[in-house]
């Protein structure tokens, strides 16, 4: 074991960890030692090729195929310098007041989160794309919404020099997407914060982090770690856990914190989602241009949100229910495909939680509630109307049997698309907005941390990531995560003055 000592150790470099790193840069400039440990690798610009399988393997946990305990849902999250911000799409929304207020976390106000979110939106160059930059996969969604009577809103996105490669979820090959890997982490490093990649925090003890640094695998992407491979004991005045909604609860659970924190791992939510495809009779611009420009928010009325999206051949094939010639015919129509993502706004539910197995590895237990299935069905019906409204000739609908509707059958949408057709383990559900597990609240009886991310009864330990959400956010979460992490950095800076 090699011993090291720092003033602050941040575990994870994603939306939360990257934000804390930059927030603590003033301390680093004053000579305090601030360290970020990142389990994943650090890639050079030219290693972002946009190739589906090789990028998924390099950037995602389990190559993007992490499954829930019963194998019925895939969870996508990054394991790389920048965390999931290296693979997110960069749609940038500010939390709704009704959601933050419904959490009822003492000391947390919507006004404060919104103000901080706006600051990060500016830092990340968030803006609306010009009409000329928006492709037909997106404009057809807007046109279909108008036909079908839905209100489409434009997503602000955080790009700078976007060339419209549509490859955001495979890591931007043009360094255009403004994630923590491009903005906060490099700025923090320039100001003296140290970032060590391929460094997994395996355990946390009182003011101490046990770390395993791995060698770069032969032929894999990414540079070797900044530290020699081996086991380290890193002493720290303060520890900030920012490993994401799966990584953070798992690390704290395997370190034994569950004994005094009964809510640790509980309250996991993730906006379970389907990818739907509709085929047009002509080629459209879909796999060129930024993939995500519009959404429809029906969270309050029907519990779902619709977003435009564009995926790659393997992910698209995997997202169709069933198998065989009909599915293949959709893939063969790739240049004519329009895609919509249906997300259910799930709520924290008893039993949906992060746990660890006998080796300390994360296991996510998740059951689809009736509300979630109803929301997915309602979102699927709405999407079918939007596809046909936009002129699609046929639509693949996972909640119909058989799972295909043709334009002349558009009048049968309500009868054909039914929640009863949802069979867990057959219908492809995936999620990328992972939340909860270290929820904020007032005491250990109802939560894991206070509103400043301080873990109850452990003043030296804080959490600063998506695991802080006491319940789902019902919109794309990264700006809110940054806002929460910014509060954590502020609290640590204040502690340092005292």
């Amino acid at each position: 074991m090699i011993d090291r000592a720092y003033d602050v150790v941040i575990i994870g470099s994603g939306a939360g960890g990257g934000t804390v790193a930059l927030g603590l840069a003033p301390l680093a400039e004053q000579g305090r030692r601030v360290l970020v440990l990142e389990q994943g690798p650090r890639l050079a610009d030219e290693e972002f090729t946009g190739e589906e399988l090789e990028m998924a393997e390099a950037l995602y946990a389990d190559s993007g195929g992490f499954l829930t305990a019963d194998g019925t849902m895939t969870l996508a999250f990054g394991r790389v310098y920048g965390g999931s911000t290296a693979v997110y799409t960069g749609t940038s929304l500010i939390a709704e007041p009704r959601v933050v207020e419904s959490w009822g976390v003492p000391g947390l106000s919507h006004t404060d989160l919104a103000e901080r979110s706006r600051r990060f939106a500016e830092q990340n160059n968030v803006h609306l794309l010009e009409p000329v930059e928006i492709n037909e996969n997106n404009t057809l969604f807007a046109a279909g919404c108008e036909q079908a009577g839905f209100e489409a809103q434009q997503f602000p996105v955080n790009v700078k020099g976007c060339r419209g490669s549509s490859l955001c979820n495979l890591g931007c090959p043009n360094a255009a997407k403004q994630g923590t890997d491009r903005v906060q982490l490099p700025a923090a490093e320039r100001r003296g914060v140290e970032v060590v990649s391929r460094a997994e925090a395996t355990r946390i003890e009182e003011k101490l982090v046990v770390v395993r640094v791995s060698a770069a695998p032969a032929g894999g992407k990414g540079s070797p770690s900044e530290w020699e491979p081996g086991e380290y004991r890193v002493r720290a005045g303060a520890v900030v856990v920012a490993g994401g909604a799966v990584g953070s609860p798992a690390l704290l659970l395997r370190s034994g914190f569950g004994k005094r924190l009964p809510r640790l791992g509980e309250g996991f939510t993730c906006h379970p989602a389907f990818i739907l495809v509709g085929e047009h009779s002509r080629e459209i611009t879909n796999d060129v241009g930024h993939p995500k420009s519009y959404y429809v928010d029906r969270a309050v009325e029907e519990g779902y949100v619709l977003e435009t999206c564009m995926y790659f051949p393997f992910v698209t094939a995997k997202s169709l229910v069933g198998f065989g010639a009909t599915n293949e015919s959709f893939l063969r129509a790739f240049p004519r495909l329009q895609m919509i993502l249906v997300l259910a706004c799930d709520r924290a539910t008893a039993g949906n939680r992060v746990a660890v197995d006998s080796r300390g590895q994360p296991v996510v237990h998740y059951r689809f509630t009736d509300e979630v299935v109803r929301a997915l069905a309602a979102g699927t019906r709405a999407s079918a109307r939007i596809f046909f409204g936009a002129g699609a000739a046929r639509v693949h609908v996972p909640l119909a049997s058989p799972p295909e509707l043709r334009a002349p059958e558009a009048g049968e949408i309500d009868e054909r698309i039914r929640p009863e057709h949802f069979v867990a383990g057959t219908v492809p559900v995936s999620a990328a907005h992972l939340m909860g597990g270290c929820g904020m609240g007032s005491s250990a009886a109802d939560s894991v941390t206070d509103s400043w991310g301080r873990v109850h009864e452990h003043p030296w330990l804080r959490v600063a990531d998506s695991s802080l959400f006491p319940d789902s956010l019902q919109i794309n979460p990264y700006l809110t995560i940054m806002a929460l992490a910014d509060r954590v950095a502020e609290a640590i800076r204040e502690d340092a003055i005292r």
Partner: protein
Amino acid sequence: MIPPGRRAFRSLAVTIVPGAARLDAEGWQDVEARIEAALRTRPPRLRRGLRLLVLALEWSPLLRHRRRFSRLDDARRTQILDRVQRSPNLLLRRGFWGLRTLVLLGYYGRSEVRRSVGYRADPDGWAALMGDFPTGPEDGIEGGS
């Protein structure tokens, strides 16, 4: 996973993606190598489970149809896999899900197949398609805190 049940595996793969029937020997090798590579990082228990599933599916029609899966016609094969994917047994549905995912990964992971379906995404985006690209406002504050 593949060698002992290669014929069984390929007949399953062709039922899942009929286009796989057009693969030549090199194409199959490529598909199978991708699947093996994806399985390399997975727990051995998963690899064993998948191998068992392939063999079980191969032999399952013997009683009813007096033939192995790989000797059946397309319609019968499709019927059998459809029953498996709708099975009341979650373990079986999961197993089929895993197998289906691997076949799709092996097949659609091939650059030839991606090209043949007309997938055009390119790091150069608009410029690759049209020789030019539109730009938006670029005045961000990089790295400010």
